[in-house]
């Protein structure tokens, strides 16, 4: 079974190597670049398929490389990491197609796609990391790989946004580092272990552990955009649309949320953290972020900014599900990692299409756009209803499990948060839909481009349709064996609440 030791490394390489090669390509070498991108994405997808089958049947994939004394660089594939890897891989493929269409004829594409691949590599690394130091390594790599994408346009505004992004993420990374070293010197281990590895620790160390928890969660909360650490996210909207799409759906915010899951379940252990009393504050913080993000979203006229605040709100569902604890809420939180990704990437693709095709950036310009671009807006509508939590779209499933889990754990207040958030989601999404479908068309669009008799280019239209269909399918076909929900249940049974 030696082969299995190298599969995790291969998964990383399938995006790293194409990325490095793309850097060296000349700008006009479009075909080779597209080939490399698609080859990498498809190779990764094939590997993911293989691992899904393998993990389902109980196989074990792990790569270990020495990094420090007693600390290895560990890449391990378990059900939870595979969930995140599958999401990133599928959305990478879709986003690559979208980006090829979106960036047609724009400058510096080799650089863009190079960093884009690095960004995916880092995300997959975050998912694969089998201990906290490997996680830290990829978490920092993600910061480094996303920065050039955020300042890609090279304007003064972009440079400032990049500066603020770094201020947040580098400080967050520093806190994460302190927490990691502290934990290591206290326990001598950083290995992610089901149910955590801290239960043997003497009670005199509990205050230190609370400090470590706070440091780790703060460091992760920056990327997960927990209020008040969210300030970078709306500014990062300066990046090109495919970047925003990937950043919001998979890469950066999800890396933070995923890290929170890891810390609570595989470092501290959920029961141990509950006993330590650190989960309650996390739940409150997540709940506050959910409401605050939705409230701020209400007042944004810029479409991408509204979506950004919506992300801040939605990603905290994951943290909330983790912090409520208990198997059912956990399923809700974990599955939302996928569901939110599918829905949010759809919304961002659509926003990008509106900007590229009609020059629309503001919500006030969206009157009647549903008649001009019916397919795009149909996808948008599915995404928006999913966010609100309307059945049968994926978002409903997450909320259902979150609510059920909260009730099971006697945390009834969560229901009010969920209901309030749904109301607010409706309040900021329905007016957009109303404008798009029911308001009269304006005389002219801000900056219209024509694509024959299609509403927009194929490469731009196909991705949101695909992701919207997946969001719908994830809600409709929940009982199929490889649906996100079934997989989340598998995670819960095998990793978090194993008998």
């Amino acid at each position: 079974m030696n082969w299995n030791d190298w599969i995790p490394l291969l998964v990383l390489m399938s995006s790293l190597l194409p990325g490095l090669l793309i850097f060296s390509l000349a700008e006009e070498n479009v075909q080779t670049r597209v080939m490399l991108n698609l080859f990498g994405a498809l190779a990764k997808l094939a590997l993911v398929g293989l691992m899904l089958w393998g993990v389902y049947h109980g196989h074990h994939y792990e790569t270990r490389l020495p990094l420090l004394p007693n600390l290895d660089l560990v890449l391990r594939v378990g059900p939870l990491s595979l969930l995140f890897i599958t999401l990133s891989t599928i959305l990478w493929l879709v986003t690559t197609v979208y980006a090829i269409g979106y960036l047609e004829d724009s400058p510096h594409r080799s650089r863009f796609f190079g960093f884009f691949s690095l960004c995916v590599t880092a995300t997959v690394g975050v998912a694969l990391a089998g201990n906290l130091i490997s996680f830290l390594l990829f978490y920092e790599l993600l910061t480094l790989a996303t920065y050039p994408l955020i300042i890609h346009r090279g304007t003064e505004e972009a440079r400032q946004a990049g500066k603020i992004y770094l201020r947040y993420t580098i400080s967050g990374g520093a806190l994460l580092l302190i927490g990691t070293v502290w934990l290591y010197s206290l326990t001598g281990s950083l290995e992610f272990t089901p149910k955590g590895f801290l239960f043997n620790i003497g009670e005199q160390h509990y205050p230190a552990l609370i400090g470590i928890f706070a440091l780790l969660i703060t460091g992760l909360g920056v990327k997960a955009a927990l209020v008040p650490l969210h300030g970078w996210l709306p500014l990062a909207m300066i990046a090109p649309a495919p970047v925003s799409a990937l950043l919001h759906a998979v890469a950066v915010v999800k890396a933070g949320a995923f890290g929170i899951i890891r810390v609570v379940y595989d470092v501290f252990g959920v029961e141990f953290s509950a006993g330590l009393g650190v989960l309650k504050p996390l739940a409150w913080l997540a709940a506050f972020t959910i409401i605050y993000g939705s409230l701020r979203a209400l007042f944004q006229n810029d479409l991408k900014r509204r979506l950004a605040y919506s992300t801040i709100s939605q990603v905290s569902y994951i943290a909330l599900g983790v912090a409520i604890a208990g198997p059912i809420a956990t399923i809700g939180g974990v599955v939302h990692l996928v569901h939110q990704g599918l829905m949010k990437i759809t919304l961002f693709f659509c926003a990008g299409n509106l900007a590229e095709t009609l020059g629309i950036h503001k919500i006030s310009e969206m009157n009647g756009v549903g008649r001009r671009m019916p397919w795009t807006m149909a996808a948008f509508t599915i995404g928006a209803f999913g966010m609100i939590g309307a059945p049968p779209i994926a978002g409903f499933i997450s909320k259902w499990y979150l609510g059920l889990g909260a009730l099971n754990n006697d945390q009834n207040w969560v229901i009010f948060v969920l209901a309030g958030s749904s109301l607010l989601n409706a309040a900021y999404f329905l007016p957009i839909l109303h404008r798009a479908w029911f308001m009269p068309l304006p005389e002219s669009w801000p900056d219209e481009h024509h694509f024959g008799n299609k509403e927009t280019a194929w490469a731009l239209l196909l991705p949101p349709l695909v992701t919207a269909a997946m969001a719908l399918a994830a809600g409709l076909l929940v009982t199929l064996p490889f649906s996100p929900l079934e997989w989340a249940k598998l995670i819960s049974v095998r990793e978090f609440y194993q008998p």
Partner: protein
Amino acid sequence: MEMQNAFMAFPWAVVLILLPLAGALSCFLFPRICRTLGLITSFATVIAVVGLGWQLLEHGSYRHAIGGWGAPLGIELYADGLSLLMLATTGLVGFAISVYSTTYFKAAVAIKFWPIWMCLLAALNALFLSADIFNLYVTLELLGLSAVALTALTGSKEALNGAMRYLLATLLASLTYLLGVALLYHSFGSVDITLLAKQIQATSAVWAALGLIAVSLMLKTALFPLHFWLPPAHGSAPAPVSALLSALVIKASFYIFLRLWFTLFDPLIDNEAINTLLGLLGCAAILWGSIQALRQTRLKLLIAYSTVAQVGYLFLVFPLSASMGSVAWNGVAYLIISHALAKSAMFLSAGNLLFFGGHDRIADLDRVVQRLPLTAAAFALAGVSIMGIPPSGGFIGKWLLLEAAMSQSRWDLIVVMIIGGVLAAAYIFKVIGYTFSPAEVAHEAQPVSATMQWSALLLAIAAILLGFLYVPILTLLGISDIIIASGARL
């Protein structure tokens, strides 16, 4: 088999000193082909280091009495894991800088550069192989003088100014050091480090010698507040020279500090106060150097101040060596090597940028990320190591120091180290941010040769790869008597 035996028995340590000396002489005698001669010598030095490394791995630490005359009468050479790593770093960085210099210098300057650089290389190698404190003085003096000469190479007003300050500082430091040596020789009648270490006692003369030697080496290593000479010298010298100075020359005096501290003065310095003072100065250097770097508008000065800050990290080994000595020790060795690689890469890329645009104003870097991608990549990757972000050699070094600090609950040092990392990120990304945006006034650009670009990039990549080489580095570092001495104090 016979070949292998001959290889093993060959006096590689002597070769390491004589080879660059011969190189210097031949570069001086045949100025027309000085580039080729220098490059060959530099490469041969790397091979000699490999030979020495092989010997050390087979037989452990190495002693060689020149001409058969050992201490206390003759000169002895000594090499262990630490010297080997220093020699290897010198060899590799030196070779990369040599490659870079073949195209960087025009013929008129090249004929001056190569002989002096070969002298400097000889001085460095001899220093890392010296077994006695007087020999260390001689090599230190030769090193200082060749470094000053290289700084003044271009003869511009700025360069002469920087070189003058440097000359005064280095001469003062050498004299102070010599005074310390004289005091020790007077007290014990020997200059051999091992012999001295056996008989050393806490007399007032020894304390005075310790003080003199420490101050002298702090001045040479540019530890805050004795760093005043470094930014003008490193900022005004030609780029390959700045790279040599920041990467290797200051490390040489720090190496002596480390050696003497943990062997010769080891019995004396269980004294908390001195170690605390060194730690405090290190912290001040980190903070002051980083803040000054952040304030600079010129790239080379920014990098020079970054060196001031990074030197501060090295001195944290002294307060941390009390317990977990070996962890702190490994950490500092790691930082020395990774800083040498990263900082030389950084100065070489600054040289490329200067060559390219004719200036090094940070705010006018004008889209170099697109126009000079290899150089921009070199700077960024070197920056990753300087910031201490994984994966890189700098991260491993800082992690080990943090681990040692954490085990002693030295939160003050932890906070300073982390702030230093964040500030480093701030000044490095300040540069990177400007490489993406267009400048207000566009400049005529000169093409930069692939040799110059790649030598910078390969050094930076080496700094990153160092983050995965913990096992071999640790094995090499383990060939040492000092670790055992320090480990015994645990």
